[in-house]
């Protein structure tokens, strides 16, 4: 079965992508996973400068899910280029960088630096992190803001631009449309759902940040619905994510309309999940006589 797909100028050998913030900078997993066997890896979010993020506790578990409020700790774009990209290139990884900003100028500058770096295949624009006040989400929660960030970055780079959308809006498909209108090559969704967990003994939130983003199997049906809505609204590829924990989950997203999928939380539980997912996709292809996995995209009989 042909597993490959195209996102703008970027060819992925399969649709399995390690989600941003769930795979470090990729190099952390180089001894555990054959990075070149993944469709792509997405880096942790990168601003121009390094950031320390929030104090611990940064995660809390919930039924079939978890909240995180890391606060976009990161080493900044230049150190990523200097310290992480050489190993990622040597390992043959297909690299998508997750770009953050507090202003449009910062998105543009970080994108320009990374687009000029050998081995960077695409830019995922983080306009959806729920955990910091001053970056991203104000663009991702406004149709004009989404349009403006995407078109500004679009102008300075030839590599694919993939805005990552927040589910914390009433109509996510309209944001996919705004991104497409601004020249995005694809959209990825969903980022996490803004959520809260309280310790009833102390009456304090369990996260240092108070609130955090919910991920994991608990959110999957909502994410599938949102991917399906976006598929009907735009022609560009959709990268789906939200609680994928096995091959059937990945197939569900693809049938709903995702051209590729990202896996995050499940990688924490099982860092060896990637070969299991790939085997599961191939097994499905054999059982259903699928020649090209991309033929499944958006085939839900709704």
């Amino acid at each position: 079965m042909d597993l490959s797909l195209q996102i703008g100028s970027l060819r992925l050998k399969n649709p399995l992508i390690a989600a941003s913030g769930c795979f470090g900078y990729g190099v952390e997993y180089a001894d555990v996973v054959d990075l070149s066997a993944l469709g792509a890896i997405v880096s942790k979010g990168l601003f121009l400068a390094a950031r320390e993020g929030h104090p611990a506790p940064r995660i809390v578990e919930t039924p079939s899910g978890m909240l995180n409020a890391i606060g976009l700790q990161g080493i900044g774009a230049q150190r990523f280029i200097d310290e992480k990209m050489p190993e990622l290139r040597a390992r043959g990884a297909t690299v998508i960088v997750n770009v953050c900003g507090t202003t449009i100028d910062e998105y543009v500058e970080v994108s320009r630096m990374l687009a000029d770096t050998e081995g960077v295949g695409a830019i995922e624009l983080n306009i959806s992190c729920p955990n910091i006040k001053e970056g991203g989400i104000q663009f991702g929660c406004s149709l004009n803001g989404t349009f403006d960030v995407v078109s500004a970055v679009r102008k300075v780079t030839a590599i694919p631009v993939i805005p990552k959308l927040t589910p914390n809006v009433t109509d996510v498909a309209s944001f996919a449309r705004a991104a497409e209108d601004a020249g995005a090559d694809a959209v990825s969704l969903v980022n996490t759902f803004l959520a809260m967990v309280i310790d009833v003994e102390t009456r304090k939130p369990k996260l240092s940040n108070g609130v955090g983003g919910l991920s994991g199997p608990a959110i999957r049906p909502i994410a599938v619905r949102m991917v399906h809505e976006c598929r009907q609204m735009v022609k560009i590829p959709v990268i789906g994510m939200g609680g994928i924990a096995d091959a059937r989950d990945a197939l569900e997203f693809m049938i709903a309309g995702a051209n590729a999928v990202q896996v995050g939380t499940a990688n924490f539980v099982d860092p060896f999940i990637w070969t299991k997912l790939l085997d599961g996709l191939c097994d499905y292809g054999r059982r259903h006589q699928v020649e090209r996995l991309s033929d499944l995209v958006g085939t839900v009989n709704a």
Partner: protein
Amino acid sequence: MPIDVAARVIANRPLSSDYNVLALAAPDIAAIASPGQFVMLRPGTGRDPLLRRPFSIFEILRDADGAATGLSILSKRIGVSTSLLYDAREDQRIDCLGPLGRPFTIVEPPSQAWMIAGGVGLAPFATLAEALTAGGVKSTLFYGARRAEELFYLDFFRRLGVELVLTTEDGSLGERGRVIAPLDRRLADLPAAADVMLHACGPEGMLAAAARTAGKYGRPCEVSVERIMGCGLGGCYSCVVPMRGADGAVHHVRSCIAGPVLDADQISWE
């Protein structure tokens, strides 16, 4: 490279109504583990609880020829996952990923090694004590708990020739109070020419006090920290500890890969 095995439960021995020692058939992990390293366990099979939990490797289990047959963990029942581990049955399978993290520094004679354990913080010291004894290092265990019934494995350490300094909060065994008091006195009495390395594991307040006390006498101290951990491999950035870097600034350091054993004098204690 860490190994993931669906480890069979060899035995599950309750030590009290809260504590248990769980023996797991994970010989490949046990064979390459160093004192202070940890494993990520997944006690359930479904998706609630979802994440694995980190546990210090307590004992390396060996057959008559000395070959590693598995490992055990010392667990205290606190939440959902530790309750599942407390109730685990023989022959049940538990996903076990490891060995992970930075181990303890093992000194050589004539340096001594002093271990400071509070409650379930005893966990990393059984393997460390074995390594110290094997290396001919004179060692002492300062071990504190709430009451006598919660001081475990004392004979294990005695058999290894480890000197025991015990404290209980209710005074039911050893000195009444916290473990830092005798530590402070012993450090005060130690000749300046004698080298000693401190290793501490336990509640955060005890670690901070151990670090402070070590600093007061200018002695090196390693602490094994416990943080809520998502992955154990450096992927999620959940388990950070504020540490002073070479640049003098405080940075959030991932305790799963930079630790769990960290140099106490670099941690920015609150």
